[in-house]
Each structure stands twice: as C-alpha cells, then as structure tokens.
C-alpha cells in the first residue's frame, strides 16, 4: 500500500488537519509504511468470524431519561477561546 500526495491531502482534509506542503512526502512514506504493517491482517481468513467492538461483549448500559447534569455553562465557557453572551464564537458561516 502506497499513498500518493493527493491521497494524503484527501485524508488530511477528512481529518480536518492542516498539514504543511513540505511535510507531505514524509506523511506519505510513514502512512504507507503503517498501512503495509496493517495489511498483514490479510494473512488470516476471517470469513464467518463475528467482529467484536467491546472486549467483554457487554451491551452499553442504559439509564433512565432524567436530567442529571446541572447547568454549568458559565463555568465551562471560562475555558473557551472566544465567547459572547453565552455563545461560542466562530468565523461567520452565512453571509
């Protein structure tokens, strides 16, 4: 498996990561090497084996649909880079 420049750029965009143009060749090499390692998985036939996501295969626990959290907006927004009147500020999206 070998990833070319356009594939690296596409993956970086999917992951919303700005990467420097000059770093693309090293990402291309390193990611290709990692994917080659990963492809060793193909040495075993897994037809009919069920996939497991939780090691103990326990179902996710459900809880009653009750309000348990108290409003801590101001407390949490102390850590936000930019807020105004209780809202998080981002660059204008709709002209």
């Amino acid at each position: 498996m070998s990833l070319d420049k356009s594939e690296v750029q596409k993956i970086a965009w999917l992951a919303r990561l700005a990467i420097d143009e000059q770093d693309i060749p090293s990402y291309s090499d390193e990611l290709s090497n990692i994917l080659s390692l990963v492809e060793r998985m193909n040495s075993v036939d897994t037809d009919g084996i069920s996939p497991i996501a939780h090691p103990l295969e326990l179902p996710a626990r459900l809880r009653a649909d009750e309000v348990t959290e108290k409003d801590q907006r101001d407390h949490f927004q102390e850590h936000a880079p930019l807020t105004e009147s209780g809202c998080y500020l981002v660059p204008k999206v709709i002209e």
Partner: protein
Amino acid sequence: MHQSTLAQLSAALESKQISSEELTRLYLDRCKNFNDSLNCFITITEDEAIEKAKQADQLRAENKHTALTGIPVAQKDIFCTNGVKTSCGSKMLDNFIAPYDATVVEKMNAAGFVTLGKTNMDEFAMGSSNETSFYGPVKNPWNTEYVPGGSSGGSASAVAARLAPIATGTDTGGSIRQPASLCGITGLKPTYGRVSRYGMIAFASSLDQGGPMALTAEDAALMMNVIAGFDERDSTSAEQNVDDYTKNLNNSIEGLKIGLPKEYFGEGLDSNIAKVIEDGIKELEKLGAICKEIELPNTELSIPAYYVVAPAECSSNLSRFDGVRFGYRCNDPKDLSDLYTRSRGEGFGKEVKRRIMIGAYVLSAGYYDAYYLKAQQIRHLIRDDFQTAFKDVDVIAGPTATGTAFKLNEKLNDPVSMYLSDIYTVSVNLAGLPAISIPAGFVNKLPVGMQLIGNYFDESRLLNIAHKYQQATDWHQQIPEGFE
C-alpha cells in the same frame, strides 16, 4: 523515608513518626530538584499539595482518616484535575484548566491522597517512549540518555526515582506495563471496565484503562482498593463486585498453573531479556507454580489489528478538539474550516496527526470492511486464543517488552519499529484482560519487566503472584544511582 512503600508510609503516619506535611514537603523537594534532569512532571502543584497535606494531618488528629490519608501521589496528566492544568502532553490542551475531577482523582482525593503534580506523558498517550510530549521527553532515571517508555513515562520515571511513592497511569496498548518494565517498577493494567474512564481523556475508548504504577504489588493493591469499581458516569464500567485486593496477597501459589506462550519467546525477543524472564519463571516454580507451554497463535496479528482499532477510535475521539469550546485555537481564522484545520494542524504533534490520519483513512467510505471490520474480527480470534489458554492455565507469563529501554531519538523517526515493540502488550488490551509488569532483573544495568496476564477480573490473583515473587526477590527494591 522516600524509599518507603505505601504500606510503610501509612505506618509512619499512623505512628506519628512523620506528618503528612513533612512527608509532602520531602517529596515536593525531590520533585523540584530532579525535574530538570528527568522532566517527569508537567505541573507540580506545590501550594495545593501542602494545603491538602495540612488537611490530612488535621483529619488524622481528629481520627477521621483512612490508612492512606496524607500519602503523596503523582497523577498522569491525562486525568482531569479540577482547577489544575490538564494537558494530556499536548499543545492542544496547554491552556486547559480542567473544570472537574476524573472519577479516579475524585476517589483518590476522598481516600486522602495528596496530589504532588501531573506527570508528563506521550501526547494524548500515543507513543512508547514519552518522546511525543509537547513538553519534551522524559528521561529514564536508570540512565538519563535512555527513554522511560511510554505513554505513562512521567509516572514511571517519577516512581522509579522515588519522586512520588505511587502514581497513576493509563494503558491502551501497554502504556502502564511497558514504562513500568523499562523503569523497573510494578504496573497493573486492570480488566477493561474495572476502573472508571470518566474524566480520563479518551484515546481509544474500547482499549483505554487506568491503573496503578507502584514500587510493589502490595502498593498497587492498596491503590486498586481505592480506584476500582462501578461508576455510572462511565457507560462501559463493569458492574462486577470489587475484591479486596490486599486480602489474597499472601496466599500460597503452590500448584498454580502458568502458561508460557511460545509466541512470546520466539524471534524478536532479545536473548538477554529471555534469560531474565526464564529466571523469573524458575523463581515462580520454586514457589510451587507449575509451568507449561501454551499457544497464542494470533499474537502476530495483534499489532496490525491494534494499529487499526486504536487510530480509528482516536480519530473519532479527537474530533472534539476543534478550536471552538476549549483548547488551542489558531490566530485569525479566515473561515470555519480554516479554524478547524489550522487549530488542529497547529495544536497536534506529528505522531497524533499520523494516527488521526490512519484512523480517518481506515474508517473512510469503501475501506471500512477491509480495515476496521477485519481488525474487529481478528480481535475476536485473539480473545478466543486467550480463553482457550485459560481453560488449561491460571495465568500467562512472559516478557513485557522486547528489550530494555532504548536511547532517546533511537526510534523516533521510525514509527513502525516503535509499534512492533508493543507485541507482548497490545493483545491484552484487544482482549480486555488484566496484566501486571513486575521487575525481574537487569540487562546492561537497565531494568527488565516480567508480565503476568490473568483472566477477566482476576487482578487479585495477579497481585498475589506478584507479591509472592517480590517476597522472594529484591529486584523491585533496586534504586537507580543518584536517587537513593
């Protein structure tokens, strides 16, 4: 005093041989004196620690204490600590003051532990050498030209250098056990779900598990008694009853059946390490254990499967870092997508970006079945290998790591070689099993750890075997030169 175990410190506090404030100041002085050379702390919380120690002395005076009230601890900087910077080793969270305590921290505070500070770690726990930290590499106290292992390298180095009597770590693919092995301390990765993940910054949620990094198995048991247990705030927390982990420490291990996986002693293992582990196993046989060879045939596949599952989950978990609600935000974003991509591109280091990109790729349209689904099927095979083995044996023993600590920068630019060194640890996380690494000897003056893997929720037995081994050996009592 700084060479003492938790049990000894507890006795010293109880007999008023020392106060918590004196003890805390003693460890704080060591932290400050040695942090320049070892870099194991990102933050030292001196004022808070002294305040908490004074409260502990007050509680002891009023007879309202637990056995551990007033004992110092170092917290890995992946655990949220209310009002204290929690960076996860990343520039992304360099400005993040956690607004709440992780369950592990809350429980330790309630038991009376005094937090000395937050330990350095690989960025977002991604690394096996503690070199990916935004705050610079941690050094191994046994030789400061060498890495301490990772990702809980700061905790391992701090405990080995006796800058803290005990510390927390987290283990996603070996991040407690491998640094414990490389620094010559005891590190336990509990069963998945045994210790709450609430407030522990997520890397790969189906693999992450917090646990103790200590000088002895007995100390690890004492900490497990505090941190283990069900937490409704963690949806994958196990509802199983919690053992008293100190209760069985002194049980005889006569007749214990130990499996030795032939895949763990084959090529890839340094022959000097193999010798140390074989000697360790002989010691267990002297204590009455019976060893037999077993097979874990899919061991080789654990690395490729892990490097699909962990990056996939990391790419999903780390999507929360977007420059909007908390953490790093780039300057002058020109639009929303520029805000996202530059905040993330500038805030994350290279290894984290590599893993996020691998994760985004394996989860992208058209590749899911070939990578993620395939990895989850292999995960099933690996778990079944262990379950087959546990029909025949009580525990599995082998090396923790393929070698001793390596030199700083030696593997930094070769991620695949770094990944391959996790071969004996990652399958345990994929299967969700508990495992412990204990000091078993030295090669070229660097420590070697022996790993014991147990069946689900069998931490008590692992601690029992480790304790009996430590009663018969003194590897865990060795102290690196200059830190006596």
